[in-house]
């Protein structure tokens, strides 16, 4: 039994569209979120991910479609009757109240008895390890502390669902990574269904059970972080998440070939127009592995040292550039030829992913 118990309910979007005048922000979005799941909406700015969250929260009204939580149709329920906890991008803490006042606010609205407010606020603050700051003014808190208070305030009233709109974007890199893990742990403790919006792909991959990639108001792919990265649904996902070079491939009977060379494909069913080449999936050619890999000949153009790894720019025989990422371990660096010298790269057939072109 956790300190602050929470319900966990599934969420369902059914054909949700939102138009602002002639602009379509959401185009027929259907999506199911399992109970207790941590789901992230990921997309470039203007993709509609925040609009989708706002429709869920009730602050933006859909043009058509339905939003269900559990079995209840929430589409026309006003935000204050939805019972969803929400964390905002800039925290939206109330500066005219102290930390205790902020966290107690939703409980006061619910008419919770004074003594109980005290214990519940303390429990929520304990969860984010800030119970010693209850009397502080909001202005005296650091960014990370504000973030945690906002989180405590969003869960203290045991909401049905927890929503977060780019909550970490204002924090610096180290703190952001630390908070990612804390939020993840908190989610595991509470088991509350959580919808998280971010434009940071690494954050999405780190935190989520599943990631929804959104572009131009449409859901492009819904999958586990690993599947999103290793098996992108199309050229947009491949390009948006991680680094990759997209090389055009030709259909060759039932298979595919690149620059006239048939490609060995792994277990993943591939279909489409582009070969996705990620720099860290490329390696040197080890003799005897020919059955397992696809080989690419080219010449080394440039090497950029980046600390833990280095990036090598290679021009393939047909003139297309690819990038190779190498660990800076001595034995790996030793295998790099001189600038301008020929080099043969290997890509494991299970990492040979072919994706269709993104439909706009």
């Amino acid at each position: 039994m956790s300190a602050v118990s929470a319900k966990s309910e599934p969420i369902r979007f059914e054909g949700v569209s939102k138009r602002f005048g002639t602009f379509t922000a959401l185009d027929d979005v259907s999506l199911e979120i399992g109970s207790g799941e941590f789901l992230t909406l990921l997309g470039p700015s203007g993709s509609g991910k925040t609009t989708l969250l706002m429709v869920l929260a009730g602050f933006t009204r859909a043009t058509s479609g339905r939003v269900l939580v559990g079995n209840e149709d929430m589409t026309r329920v006003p935000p204050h009757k939805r019972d969803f906890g929400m964390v905002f991008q800039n925290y939206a803490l109330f500066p005219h109240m102290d930390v205790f006042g902020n966290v107690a606010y939703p409980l006061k609205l619910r008419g919770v008895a004074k003594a109980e407010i005290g214990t519940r606020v303390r429990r929520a603050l304990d969860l984010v390890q800030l119970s010693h700051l209850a009397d502080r003014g909001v202005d005296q808190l650091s960014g990370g502390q504000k973030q945690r208070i906002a989180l405590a305030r969003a869960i203290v009233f045991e909401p049905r669902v927890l929503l977060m709109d780019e909550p970490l974007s204002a924090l610096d890199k180290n703190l952001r990574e630390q908070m990612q893990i804390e939020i993840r742990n908190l989610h595991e403790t509470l088991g509350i269904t959580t919808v998280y919006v971010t434009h940071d792909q690494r954050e999405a991959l780190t935190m989520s059970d599943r990631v929804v990639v959104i572009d131009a108001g449409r859901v492009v792919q819904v999958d586990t972080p690993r599947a999103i990265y290793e098996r992108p649904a199309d050229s947009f996902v491949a390009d948006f998440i991680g680094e990759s070079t997209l090389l055009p491939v030709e259909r060759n009977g039932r298979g595919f070939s690149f620059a006239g060379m048939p490609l060995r494909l792994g277990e993943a069913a591939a279909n489409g127009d582009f070969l996705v080449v990620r720099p860290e999936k490329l390696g040197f050619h080890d003799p005897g592995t020919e059955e397992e890999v696809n080989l690419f000949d080219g010449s080394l153009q440039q090497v950029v040292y980046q600390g833990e790894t280095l990036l090598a720019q290679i021009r393939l025989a047909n003139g297309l550039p690819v990038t190779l990422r190498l660990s800076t371990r001595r034995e790996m660096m030793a295998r790099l030829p001189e600038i301008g010298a020929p080099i043969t790269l290997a890509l494991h057939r299970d990492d040979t992913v072919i994706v269709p072109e993104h439909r706009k």
Partner: protein
Amino acid sequence: MTLALDNARELRADERRERFSILGLSFPALILVTLLVFLPVGWLFWLSVIDGGELSLIHYRRLADATHFRIFYVTFEISILVTVLALLLGYPLAYLMSQLPPRWAGICLIFVLIPFWTSLLVRTYAWLVLLQRRGVINQTLQDLGLIDAPLRLVHNYTGTVIGMLHIMLPFMILPLYAALRTVDPNYMRAASNLGAGPVRAFWTVFFPLSLPGVFAGSLLVFILSLGFYVTPALLGGGRVMMVSMKIQQNAGLYFDWGAASALGVVLLVVTLFIFWVLSRFMRVERVFGGG
């Protein structure tokens, strides 16, 4: 499919209802302004084009005589003079305030805000006391032996301009100060770094960047001056007749609504035109925030 359509209609109705109820918060204010501003002003338009129950431009034609020409001429002349003087006096102070540390600028601002907050009538009265024949200024000058006979400072054109200048100065300084404050000091550092001396840097960099504020303040002072009544009525001593005074005379003294309306319409059209120009330069609402 029908279900989705039904839902779309309901959602649209919800959206419209919410929008209307939010926007509706401004309706009481809008109704009040419509009833007490737009309705009466519309009425004046109407009165200005009827004569004896028939549509007629007679009231406007009557404006085209030497007397009215003179009134308009004086009104514009005074307004321009007051605007130019306010700019000449206001710019140095606004400039200095924009350069001072906030604490000192705040103290200077008090000097601008106190007159801004003080009743226009009281300030006009103060000038009457200062400028009259046996007033403070004449008294002092005579005591110092600088003049033999008292100067005629009030109940004339001079008195009107001095009084109006004093009242309009805060309206020039406040928007100017707001504009000058936003000029990034890095521009001046850059100019200096590129080899411009202080005077040259000011005229080639700072001043051009401050022009929007200069326009805003000047246009504001100008339109407010056009409609002045109390100060010229008290300090002009009957020798200065501005448009507003003539309107008051026609309406309050002669009950000649046609003439008053036609003059009012002309004054209003000129004012609104300049206001329209002004609103293209700046968010006019800011000026009246009072800094």
